């Protein structure tokens, strides 16, 4: 989602909308691994530092992140320190300068962090409906009479932000795959005008208000509209699935610690009230599944078209992080 206009919690949005059509049946089976054994906290060791991202209310995120830190401490056996950043870039920079061991990021930030500083994927967020993925859509007004993306030639479109996976690169790929836009340049020759609205809400409101003909943004964007406004927009096309937002670890974080973090977070069960409360503090996600490099294979190819990722083959299935 938009870096400039603010990052977005897909988890909470998905809960708000009970996810989109057909998602409920597609999720993986809800098997929760047991929690790892606890261990005494080594007060002498350096604490584990986690960068949380602020989606809406930094003070609340700071409070929530402390609760998560407390939950993790006995499973990791280390003191856990949480801090809040305003965007993914800051989280990656914190990891680059050894100020963060773990960070909550989106797929694009992870892939770039992997290439630049060797970050490893640990856990994918699972959204309401049980899917560790999302997609982007091309939204148009229902009354516009537009039935195919090809009909957008010579019309206007709003994306969220230039450097944004769900708010630009993924929806752009819909046009690229149809041969309507060049695969390797961020240009908009097909359209009369391309706007970067600054966020999903601005982009979808631009459609509702008739400022633009279409918006290329997240599948969840319509949930930002008021109910009567939602009736006015429809999905013209959807992108491939992208892996969901994730927890990544810095290069060199011991495998044992990574494994314990994975197990502790994967063990959270949304049917248990205490766990559900913790998941609510983790951006409202439904749970976590283990992340693999291969999850990013397809989106890495898209990011590589525009130079955000240099070696997409590093994300092929079976590759070690």
């Amino acid at each position, binding site marked *: 989602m*938009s*870096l*400039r*206009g*603010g990052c*977005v*919690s897909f988890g*909470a*949005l998905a*809960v*708000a909308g*009970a*996810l*989109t*059509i*057909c*998602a*409920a049946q597609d999720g993986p089976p809800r098997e929760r691994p047991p929690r790892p054994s606890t261990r005494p906290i080594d007060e002498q060791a350096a604490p584990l530092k986690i960068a949380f991202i*602020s*989606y*809406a209310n*930094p003070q609340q995120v700071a409070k929530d992140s402390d609760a998560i830190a407390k939950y993790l401490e006995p499973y990791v056996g280390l003191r856990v320190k949480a801090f*809040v*950043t*305003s*965007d993914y*870039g*800051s989280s*990656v*920079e914190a990891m680059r300068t050894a*100020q963060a061991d773990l960070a909550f990021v989106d797929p*694009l*930030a992870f892939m*770039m962090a992997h290439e*630049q500083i060797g970050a490893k994927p640990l856990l994918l967020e699972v959204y309401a409906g049980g899917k560790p993925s999302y997609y982007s859509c091309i939204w148009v007004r229902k009354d516009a009479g537009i039935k195919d993306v090809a009909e957008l030639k010579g019309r*206007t479109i709003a994306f969220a*932000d*230039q*450097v944004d996976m769900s708010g630009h690169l993924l929806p752009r790929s819909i046009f690229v795959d149809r041969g309507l836009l060049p695969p390797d340049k961020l240009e908009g020759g097909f359209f009369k*005008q*391309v*706007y*970067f*609205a*600054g*966020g999903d*809400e*601005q982009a979808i409101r*631009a459609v509702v*208000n*008739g*400022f*633009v003909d279409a918006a290329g943004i997240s599948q969840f964007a319509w949930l*930002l509209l008021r*109910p*009567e406004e*939602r009736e006015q927009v429809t999905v013209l096309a959807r992108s491939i699935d992208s892996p969901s937002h994730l927890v990544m670890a810095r290069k060199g974080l011991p495998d044992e610690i990574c494994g314990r973090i994975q197990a502790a977070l994967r063990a959270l069960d949304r049917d248990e009230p205490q766990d559900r409360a913790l998941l609510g503090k983790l951006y*409202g996600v439904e749970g976590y599944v283990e992340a693999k490099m291969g999850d990013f294979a397809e989106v890495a190819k898209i990011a590589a078209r525009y*130079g*955000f990722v240099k070696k997409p083959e590093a994300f092929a299935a079976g590759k070690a992080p």
Partner: protein
Amino acid sequence: MKRTQLAAGRRLATRIIAGPLLLAWATVLLGAATAAAHIVPSEKLHPVAEAYRRATFILNLNPVVWEQVGPDVGTIAEHWRALDSAAAGEFVTELNGIIAEATRRGDEANGSAPLPRAVAARQVFERMTRGVATIGRELLRRAEQELGDRYEVESLLRAAQGVYGSFDDVLPAVDPQAYQRLGRCWLAMSSALGSEGLLGRGAAQVDRERFVREAREIVEYMDAHFGPQFASIEGRRLAPWPIHSPTFDRNAVLPARLPPGANTNKQLPRPRQILNMTARGVNESETALIALGDMAFDSPYIFGEPARALAISCNTCHNKSITNPQFVVPGLSARAGGMDVSNSFFAPHANNGHFNPLDIPDLRGIRFLAPYGRNGRLESLREFVRNVIVNEFNGPEPDPTLLDGMVAYMFEFDFLPNPYLNPDGSLSGKASAAARRGEEIFRRPFEQMAGMSCASCHIPSANFVDHKRHDIGSVRGASEHSKDGALDTPTLLGIRYTPPYFHDGSQPTLRAVNEWFNDVYTLGLSEQELADLTSYVETVGDGVDAYENTVHTLEAELEEFSFFLSAFEFLEQQGKRDLIDATCQTIALEIRAHKWDLQDYAHMPVLDRLAELMDQAYAANQNGAQEEVRALVREYRETYRKHAEALK
């Protein structure tokens, strides 16, 4: 992109202050927590836009509730002060002066009258409009100056857009071409900011020339139409009419809107409604008149404009027959849970010209509670309902069958069962000792009350009413010796769930009510006696399961819509096509209002189809195609029956 945490922190602070986008996200996140999408959060506006729109709404009313305008003037001034403290100071001084002139008492001896309402309202509105345009202009000017600082300019841009949002409820209707053009200007400015990129990749430079060009276009429009020369149109509603715009549509009608801060959402969890027939196990499919009344109670289509466009129905204020304590409309309400029902907004023809908001009454047990109206002015519920429709909400003269239905439905509203009361209204053995002591005080005659007790009017064996009107001194009279303060005795049953109290909602708690009587009538009750009396009244006003135990209401709502439709054959036999219209429209509207509550959106197409069937039935009914209407109603019933299990 090389960032420090310090820089990140600074950006964070900027966004907290300026981010309408983030506010919007927060709204959605909040929505997620409620798990009830039919609860529509209030529109998130920049504080200046919110203050301007609310004040404009209030300034259009007769009377103007000036004490509610003052804070909004203050909000605008506060945001202006950060940009130009001298101008903000002049603004607030001038407007407060106008308000003071409008609200001062006239002096007949000197022949000096207060500034007429309409004149004062116009002056305040015009000055406020010019002020808001100035704030927006200044923010954009500063944004241009800060183009070297991406985060600062973003903050200023969002703030400017938020301030110009003051006019967003008017421009789309009266100057749509300009609105679209300006909308694209905002998008172009956002685009011109380029991108900082991510981790050193994807950066795009700021397009300074484009940003300035687009900003100027917005400023030019705002200055030309809402700048120093701005004046409202004589004889028309106060609104930011861009009268000099070549694309201004002079014949445009502004859509009905409630002001920011209004809340017409229903309660959640829902109050538990007890219909006598349901409690007795009656087959609902054979109670057509009651079904018609239920539909009408939930229908904005029995009202006129603007209630109809705003989807206001009886059920909005009397949610499931119970007081909606959160209902509020600035300018019409003094506090949540009440409204001046003889106002110039909903039914100008019946406006009484003075601000007299009334606490929304609880309708439980209403068949036992005649006369009706806070001052008991109407003996008949039927006449009272007609008055609400015609004279409070501007509706057409109701069909007699419709009134029959509404009265039949409302006569089914039962009180909450209360295990602490015996049938004769005395306390049962389950009541506490404190309540029992309070009962003695309740029944104790006081000389200070002309030898009467609380129970003299709130007769326990008569559902705690005496069907009379009394002036207890809670109403401020029109003049020193006027006799216009008598009010109908309200029941105490269920009262625990209907704060605030008194006809105007001026007493927040039952304890406060008892203190009021103790003070005004110098009853001399001790602290212990006040506590006991309060315990008694709370016990009388208690009830079992006052609220439903779930926030998922869709299933129950859909069942109710089917109940509405059970009146169809009766209405057809009676030839009541208008009422069939209202039934179809109401069901379609209600489905669309509640469809977002669906827990699994996979079934959304079914709800869309049900609403569509009612749209089609309405259209067919309008065309007199009765066979088609019958077929569509049949399809609705079959579709609902087939999918009912999944629609939760």
